[in-house]
Each structure stands twice: as C-alpha cells, then as structure tokens.
C-alpha cells in the first residue's frame, strides 16, 4: 500500500471532476427553489384554486379552448361566483398575468417545457411585432403538427 497517497489524491480529483455540475450551480447561486413568478397585481383570485392551476392549468386551457371555439360559450363561471371571459389573451394575459415573460415563460423555461405552441397563433399583448418568430427555427424544422 505504498501508493495510498496517490490513490487518495486521484480519488479526490475524480470526485472534484464528477461534481463539477454541483460546483457550477453553487457558484451561480442556483437553488432548488425554482423560478420566482411575478403574480398579478390587479386580480387576487385565480379562475380556479391555485393548487388546481399549478397541476392542471393546461387542462383548464384545453377546456376553455373547446368551450369557446367549439361550443361558442365564451363566459366561464369560476369559483365563488365570479365570471371570466374565456380568452387566453384577453383574460389570462391582459386581465391577470400581464407579463407572459415574467409569469408563463419563467416556469416553462425552468422546466424545459417545449410544448405550449399557443403563442404561434395567440398574440401576447405586450409584444407587438416582436412576437413574430419563425416557427421553423423553434421546432427545428418539424413545422407540421
């Protein structure tokens, strides 16, 4: 065991290299806390309980889509007797979560959610023409859905 020293040094170096991602995040100050969202300043209550929205907002949006387009029902009776107009841009964005970039995109970017292509068509009211990004570049050439 005359190489004990060398082995120990080698092991430490190996551990150091393997844990580079952890050092990287430590240096950047990243924690497991998750993104900070800018909440609505005008509306205190969401269209549905927050716990439901956290898990299933995409289900609600799909329901809204079918209600508005296929059934022509454009008002939604939410919790506690409030009604909202069924509109992604008009209600979700303009009325409540005014900043898509600081609300929707924060979590989506953090979790690497590629899915929502709602914005290919629905217009973010904050950005006028800047919202026009070519579909091809985003989806890497597969532009047929």
């Amino acid at each position, binding site marked *: 065991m005359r190489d004990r020293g060398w082995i120990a040094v080698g092991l430490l170096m190996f551990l150091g290299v393997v844990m580079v991602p952890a050092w990287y995040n430590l240096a950047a100050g990243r924690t497991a806390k998750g993104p900070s969202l800018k909440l609505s300043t005008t509306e205190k209550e969401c269209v*549905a309980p927050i716990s439901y929205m956290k898990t299933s907002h995409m289900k609600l949006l799909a*329901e809204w*889509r079918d*209600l508005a*387009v*296929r*059934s*022509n*029902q*454009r008002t*939604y*009776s*939410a919790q506690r007797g409030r009604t909202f107009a069924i509109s992604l*841009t*008009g209600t979700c964005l*303009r009325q409540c979560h005014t900043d898509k970039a600081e609300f929707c995109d924060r979590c989506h970017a953090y979790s690497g959610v590629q899915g929502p*292509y709602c914005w*290919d*068509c*629905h*217009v*973010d*009211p904050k950005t*006028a*023409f800047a*919202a*026009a*990004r*070519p*579909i*091809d570049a985003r989806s890497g050439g597969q*532009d*047929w*859905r």
Partner: protein
Amino acid sequence: MAGFVIDRAGEPDCQALVVDARKCLRKEGCDLCIKACRRSHNIPEISDPGHEIKWIWKESFQAAFVSEQSEHANAMFRDQPFVVLCNHCERPPCVRVCPTKATWRREDGIVMMDWHRCIGCRYCIAACPYGSRSFNWIDPRPHVKHLTSEFPTRSKGVVEKCTFCAERLVQGKSPACVAACEANALLFGDLEDPSSPVREALRSGYAIRRKAELGTMPEVYYVV
C-alpha cells in the same frame, strides 16, 4: 368546475349575408370591408398570389357568377367587381370532407373553423367550389401589417376562411365587414326571422347566389 347549458331559444337559426350589389362598389376602388376584415383578424398581406390569404375579396362577375353569363350584359355585370367571401352554405362540401371536423356547421348556420384541430390536409379547399378558403403555406406572422392582440393569428399549415366574425357576434356586434361598409351595402342577419335586415333586403329586389345549381345552398345573396 363550471357548467353551462345550451339553450337555443332566441338564438338565430340561419345567419346569412346579403350584398346589395346596387349599393356596393359605387365608389371606385372601395375596399373598406376587406380592410376591416384584415385588421380584425390579423390577416397577412402576402404579395405572392400563390400564397395569399383572403377571407373577403373582390371578384369579377364572370369569375364569381359562372352560371350567370351573358354576352350582352350591361356594364354593371360586365365591369364591376363583386365582393365575395365564404358562403356559409347550408350543405357545405368542406364540412363533409374535413377529416377532423376542424370545420363544421354550427346550429346558427355559421360554418366555423377550429384552427387548433386543422391538420392542413386541404381537402376543404379541394371541396369548396367557391375558392373561399386559403392555406397558410408560409408563416403568416411576419406579413401581418397591423398585429392586434384582439384576435389570434394562424400558424403555418392551417386553412382559414371567413367565420362571420363569430367572436364579434357573441358580443352583439355585427361582422367587421358589415360594420365597416359605408354604403350600407352589406347586411347581416337571421334568414329565419322575417323582420331581419337580410329578409328585408331579399324582399326589395331579385337576388342571385354563386353557383346555386351545385346544391350547396349558399347563404350569401347578391341583390342585383
């Protein structure tokens, strides 16, 4: 969650449009209806005619009314363009062939479009005898001159057409083209209601429809 009840009492049964050709296009080059439609719906302006998108446009009489040709027609029918759009047929061939029911006929008579469901197969374009439908061959966003967030754009790969401004009707407004017409040449209403503006217009003169012999039962009438 929430619920809703579909109650059709008091709802229109057959929405239709009447173009009073005696009043339409009296003013040379008028395109207020086309501009209003374009602005309300983020319709792109694409110079390549193979890629153009149009919901309402002008067509010569010969092209629009193929079955009503006459060698000795008067100037109105020879020279004047007619404003044409989706006819929202009572028996729409496009609805018949759509594999996903991305287009369907609503109970109020409007042939509606669901761009979430359209897969871009273009069967509807092949089926429509009037050329009312346009396909998005390219991403339309860069070509939208006045982007409004009041209405979505469409994406590349879907077919689009006039929807009689369903989003405006639900707010009690009339379609954008009808509201924009300064000559009062466009009238919109329920054909089943004898007191509606469309029935009044149809009583006021003789009206023709595009390719009526095909049996699609178009609901856009032209009082000539």
